[in-house]
């Protein structure tokens, strides 16, 4: 019951100085509101980007390369010997992943894993006296839609038509526009090996990524092998797994078993992922600064109240209130301000999210206008609220403690 007295006194003192209370409450509310909004935006865009990274490309790519040049056989023969070699050229291997069919079959046996061989290379696409250099990908259309999101980006035709049409290709709308090509037109494709083929446009895609839209050509693996003059060869194994977070581990495992350079999506995007850490540090610093300012506001108002109310504190203590009762009176004021600020901040956050939700903007590198990716999770509200409460209580703690240490006789002696 007695703690209700402390709360009653706290409430009375707060409502008595309504203006300052509202100002310091607004400070907290701003902090919480902006935290909710920025953090929703930041983690929303992070999730969105990571999702894109994870979905757009295979999780793991096995390449027909090695991380380090193969050692000369003589070094293997005499590991402890004093051997020196100069002016040697490493032996040229026939490029390509050996036994790619068996390897694909092997990894595909694991649950949730989809894998396919691919052959990549370059070629020139020519039409009506214009030409564009292009990256060629010889793929398996049935599996490609699980490996990348290209299927979702198809504007006309489809990847599956590669199967039915003979000598079909799928290109980006950007390339089609540059060459003046349309659906079912026949383009000339010229490989560095000098092979020239006339191929039919069976699909047009638009990903929003200029590099792909103007420079990527998909065809059947078999067609690519002919075009690039590499029969039965594949130089990539592309793998999608159930849990993208396991990609690094699995890539390391495959690399140690097969020897080929095997890249996980994390490895490919490491600098990008590092950027998120920096971004989060910046976000939390700014929000932390807003909260610190709000906390100083609370500290300020409660310190002022404590000084102004010294007489009241002394009289309460002379009446028989304990130091801890007095401490509660002022702590509760901090909690009040923190809680009201928290609730108001949540509402402000909701309004800000509503507003941000209507904003459309152009993202560099992508052509389409994008809605801002927002993550409207309970997490943001929870953390924002926790921030508010903790900083309010921390800010109130020091003056409250000071108030509890007031010696009433000093004040009463001075006052009478």
């Amino acid at each position: 019951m007695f703690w209700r007295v402390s709360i009653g006194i706290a409430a009375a003192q707060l409502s008595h100085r309504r203006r300052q209370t509202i100002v310091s409450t607004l400070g907290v509310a701003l902090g919480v509101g902006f935290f909710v909004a920025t953090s929703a935006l930041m983690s929303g865009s992070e999730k969105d980007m990571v999702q894109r990274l994870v979905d757009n490309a295979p999780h793991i790519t096995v390449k027909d390369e090695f991380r380090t040049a193969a050692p000369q056989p003589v070094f293997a023969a005499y590991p402890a010997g004093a051997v020196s070699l100069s002016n040697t050229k490493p032996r040229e291997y026939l490029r390509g992943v050996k036994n790619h069919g068996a390897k694909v079959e092997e990894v595909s046996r694991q649950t949730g894993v989809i894998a396919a061989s691919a052959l990549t290379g370059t070629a020139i696409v020519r039409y009506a006296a214009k030409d564009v250099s292009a990256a060629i990908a010889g793929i398996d259309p049935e599996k490609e839609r699980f490996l990348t999101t290209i299927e979702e980006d198809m504007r006309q035709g489809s990847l599956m038509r590669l199967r039915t049409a003979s000598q079909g290709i799928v290109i980006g709308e950007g390339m089609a526009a540059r060459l003046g090509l349309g659906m079912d037109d026949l383009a000339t494709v010229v490989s560095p090996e000098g092979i020239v083929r006339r191929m039919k446009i069976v699909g047009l895609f638009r990903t929003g990524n200029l590099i792909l839209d103007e420079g990527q050509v998909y065809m059947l693996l078999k067609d690519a092998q002919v075009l690039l003059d590499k029969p039965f060869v594949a130089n990539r194994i592309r793998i999608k797994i159930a849990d993208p977070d396991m990609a690094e581990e699995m890539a390391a495992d495959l690399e140690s078993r097969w020897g080929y350079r095997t890249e996980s999506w994390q490895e490919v995007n490491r600098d990008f992922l590092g950027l998120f850490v920096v971004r989060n540090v910046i976000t939390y610093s700014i929000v932390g600064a807003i909260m610190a300012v709000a906390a100083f506001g609370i500290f300020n108002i409660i310190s002022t109240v404590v000084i102004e109310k010294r007489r009241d504190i002394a009289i309460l203590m002379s009446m028989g209130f304990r130091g801890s009762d007095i401490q509660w009176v002022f702590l509760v004021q901090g909690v009040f301000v923190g809680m009201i600020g928290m609730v108001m901040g949540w509402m402000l956050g909701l309004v800000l999210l509503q507003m941000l939700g209507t904003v459309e903007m152009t993202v560099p590198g992508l052509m389409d206008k994008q809605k801002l990716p927002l993550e409207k999770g309970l997490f943001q509200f929870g953390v924002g609220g926790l921030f508010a409460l903790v900083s309010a209580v921390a800010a109130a703690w020091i003056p409250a403690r000071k108030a509890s240490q007031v010696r009433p006789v000093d004040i009463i002696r001075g006052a009478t």
Partner: protein
Amino acid sequence: MSEAIVELRSVTRVLQEVVPVTLVRDIDLTIHRGEFVSVTGPSGSGKSSLLYLLGLLDLPTSGHVLIDGEDTAGFSPDHLADIRLAKLGFVFQFHFLLPEFTVLHNVTLPMLRLGRLGEKEIRERGMSLLADFEIADQAKKRPEQLSGGQRQRVAVARALANDPPLILADEPTGNLDMRNSEIVQGIFARLAAEQGRTVIAVTHDKDFADSAPRNIHLVDGRIESDVKR
């Protein structure tokens, strides 16, 4: 004579300032239950200081303060606060009411803190205390809307809230005009005579001092005379 309610044994209080100030010096004093004692003396003679020591608001530099025969030396601040809450009622020269609260709420605060009565009983007791001092009609007002005499009566009502056996008053009529001063004086006389409370009142007012059966006169922090009539 009845038992002692508060007792000072060779109490000295020195303020440790740059130049140490002795507030009271080597005081021996016993106050019995039901006594009405006035404390007089020139300004600066240590009357207030003595009252703070009797009321456990201040601690002696040396000597002992006994309440109900119990030595309070070494009691924690919380323990002392609990004794003040249940056994003591202070009335100061200035009313010291809390400005945010209504008159009634001010009077009920000590009871709410003590928590012995229910909320409804507390309100009823608050109202009846106010009625005793003929200010029940002011219950819902804030202190600043009252006259000086009315405020001081509220302060007395608050001091009585937890029905303490000992009332300590520091110049309770100091700020009041003649008429109000007489009213408050009358209240203190009645508290002692009719309700059997112990009342110790510091005053400059000769009439008030003479109305008490016992008078302690201080000079320079010492008891110069202790007269019972």
